[in-house]
């Protein structure tokens, strides 16, 4: 505990670094995976390609990815960009399939009826399909958020600072308190992110929360 109190400033700084490395991949991953998922949902041939490629991407080992990205991107080996790009690739790999499933899950009746009342294709995507895919997308995003926050730690191995530093340093010094501090820090960030996503869901998708319990009530009611 004394170690924690003595190093509060460093803990806080590394926590901020960790957050700064985690947020862009989650957002970028979402922005890239949603259109990919929609393509996979909409056009049968693209489905196999998108889902296979994204599945393969996820099997690339983290270290290998971080080390090869500077060669591909032309960045310096210590550049945080490498970690962000690498984590974005993982996020897309995880989320593309979920996004395809999310769009598949939109009821065909609703889609047909939105065509029938006169929504054009673009408005239909943004006003009907995307919000209705929302609950599944959100659950996928929560997985991606947790996975990104934990995987970002690996960046420390190539010298990009995050809470992962405490794992390495604690291991080298055989000092469990430091390792534990890192673990707790990562968990706290992951939980905070998750709560934030749930909150966003509550605000943006109020119908998804209301619908289930009262649907049962509604069915019993008389017209």
């Amino acid at each position, binding site marked *: 505990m004394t170690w924690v109190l003595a190093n509060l400033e460093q803990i806080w700084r590394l926590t901020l670094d960790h957050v700064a490395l985690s947020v862009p991949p989650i957002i970028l991953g979402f922005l890239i995976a949603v259109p990919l998922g929609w393509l996979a949902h909409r056009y049968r041939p693209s489905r196999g390609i998108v889902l296979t490629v994204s599945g393969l991407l996820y099997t690339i080992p983290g270290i290998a990815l971080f080390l090869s990205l500077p060669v591909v991107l032309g960045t310096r080996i210590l550049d945080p960009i490498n970690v962000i790009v690498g984590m974005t690739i993982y996020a897309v790999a995880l989320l593309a399939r979920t996004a395809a499933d999310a769009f598949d899950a939109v009821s065909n009746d*609703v889609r047909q009826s939105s065509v029938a009342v006169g929504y054009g294709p673009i408005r239909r995507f943004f006003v009907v399909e995307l919000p209705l895919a929302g609950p599944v997308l959100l659950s996928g995003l929560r997985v991606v958020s947790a996975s990104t926050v934990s995987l970002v730690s690996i960046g420390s191995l190539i010298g990009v600072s995050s809470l992962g530093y405490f794992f390495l340093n604690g291991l080298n010094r055989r000092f469990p308190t430091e390792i534990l501090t890192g673990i707790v820090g990562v968990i706290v960030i992951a939980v905070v992110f998750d709560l934030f996503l749930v909150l966003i869901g509550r605000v943006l998708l109020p119908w998804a929360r209301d619908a289930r319990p009262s649907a049962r009530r509604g069915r019993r009611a008389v017209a």
Partner: protein
Amino acid sequence: MITFEGVSKRFPDGSVAVDDFSLTIPSRSTTVLVGSSGSGKTTLLRMINRMVDPTGGRILIDDEDVAGLEPVKLRRRIGYVMQNSGLLPHRTVIDNVATVPILEGVKKSVAHEQALRLLDTVGLDRGLAKRYPAQLSGGQQQRVGVARGLAVDPNILLMDEPFGAVDPLVRDELQQELLRIQRELSKTVVFVTHDIDEAFLLGDQVVILRTGGVIAQAGTPAEILANPADEFVASFIGADRGKRSLHVDAEHGDLARGERVLVDGTGRVVGILRDEPGIASSHGAASS
């Protein structure tokens, strides 16, 4: 007036849904397309608002070929009600009803005020306006669907088995409600169903379809009942099994009070024959 001129629909896989179909649907009356699945009735309905484009022939609305009209604009001026309501589950009742007027640029407050009046029209409590569709019963959802169909005050209302998924009691109620609304608003209604009794109840003109959109017979319910064109029609309306030929059962009923029990050809008791008409209309007014 809606005119089908030699309309065909062949799907890319080679199957033919409709072949050389011609029909005139008069304005301000209800035309019911009735047939089993595979009769092409829904395909025909969806050709009117261009959700399906024919591969041959033309469809005219008031002498204007729909092929020349922009689909999205066309759809916005035609009401559409489908089975399972097709309401947007993430929009409240009032937003669902006001959808199309708002798409058309009507101010939200105006559209909402108008939507509330439409809830009155279809017999829904205004208190339901802020609910989500999943919070309503099936019958209530269908009423919202009808209100949404009426929201742009369209001349044409397309209804695709709108009462197919609700229980019989609610269906009766919704049918009577539709008859009342139609008496008040006089739209050109094109109604699709597989239920011949529903067709005879709602239709000014009933079109009985065979497989592949071939018209077996078209006419008023009375014409079809009195004179089925062929065995297919007779079987479809149940005439061949004696369901439509009624006789008075002499053994039952209170003749002194002018009540005679009616029995159909299968021996099923179908009702009471009275001297004075008017039961049906009072039933319609009483339903909520």
